């Protein structure tokens, strides 16, 4: 019963931290747009948090440049367990259009473990909502 309660709470209150790991901004503004009145992710209890210590879900946009990779790792380490990472956008999933650039890694999953991938260049807010909902369904 206790476990059930925990799972319910986790499902209902995903606090997200948004981290741009070298993206072109497009996904970032779409993430923000998803939190805005038109889509309003707060309906699902999603809150955007400023510090990794408070967050449950790390939304990574961008292919992870080499400079950002160590930071990304640190941010990930700072998050308390249980934590989930969502790769937002084609370049976070696989490198996307930047695949082959010499200072770009091919996707966030080269650096930290990823729980969900949301492809799209850029993602639509609807896709983000769908992705987060699917992730929560798995918890």
């Amino acid at each position: 019963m206790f476990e059930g309660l925990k799972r319910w709470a986790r499902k209902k209150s995903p606090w997200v931290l948004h981290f741009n790991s070298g993206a072109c901004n497009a996904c970032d503004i779409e993430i923000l747009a998803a939190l805005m009145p038109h889509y309003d992710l707060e309906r699902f209890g999603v809150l955007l948090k400023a510090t990794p210590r408070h967050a449950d879900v790390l939304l990574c946009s961008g292919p992870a440049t080499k400079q950002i990779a160590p930071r990304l790792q640190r941010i990930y380490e700072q998050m308390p367990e249980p934590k989930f990472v969502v790769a937002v956008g084609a370049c976070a999933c696989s490198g996307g259009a930047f695949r082959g650039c010499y200072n770009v890694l091919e996707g966030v999953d080269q650096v930290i473990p990823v729980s969900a991938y949301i492809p799209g260049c850029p993602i639509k807010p609807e896709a983000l909502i769908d992705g987060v909902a699917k992730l929560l369904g798995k918890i």
Partner: protein
Amino acid sequence: MVARDWQADLTALFPTGEVTRGADGFFWVKVDADHLHEAVAGLKGLGITNLSTIIAEDLREHYLLSYPFLGTTVVTLTVRIAKDRPEVPTLAGTVAGAIVYEREIRDVMGITPVGHPDLRRQVVPEDWPEGVYPLRKDVVMPPASVAPQGGDK
């Protein structure tokens, strides 16, 4: 806005330089590196003060720097830089906005702006190796990918 005969003005300003007018109405002026300062001062006299950027190119035989200025038209000063002496006098004293761009050309093309007040790294990180200028054609890049080996996910 009164249309102005820029061609005449520029030809008067640069009697020795080569003034060409592109099909788009933009002007290109070839300038000597040594006379760059005077040229910029002259443009200032015409009311063209806004340096937009500095474009550094590696044309294999020599480097080429282009200084586009935006006034009510676009005037681009081009300067050839010899490969064996990648140096150019700084514009920092005349145009404060040049500081950023000069740092950039130093970082990416290795052309030193002589007399520049602040040559910290700008577009490349502070721990960048000396002597590697990424936009030179003959640059030898360290291995292209450092993709970490698989690992369990």
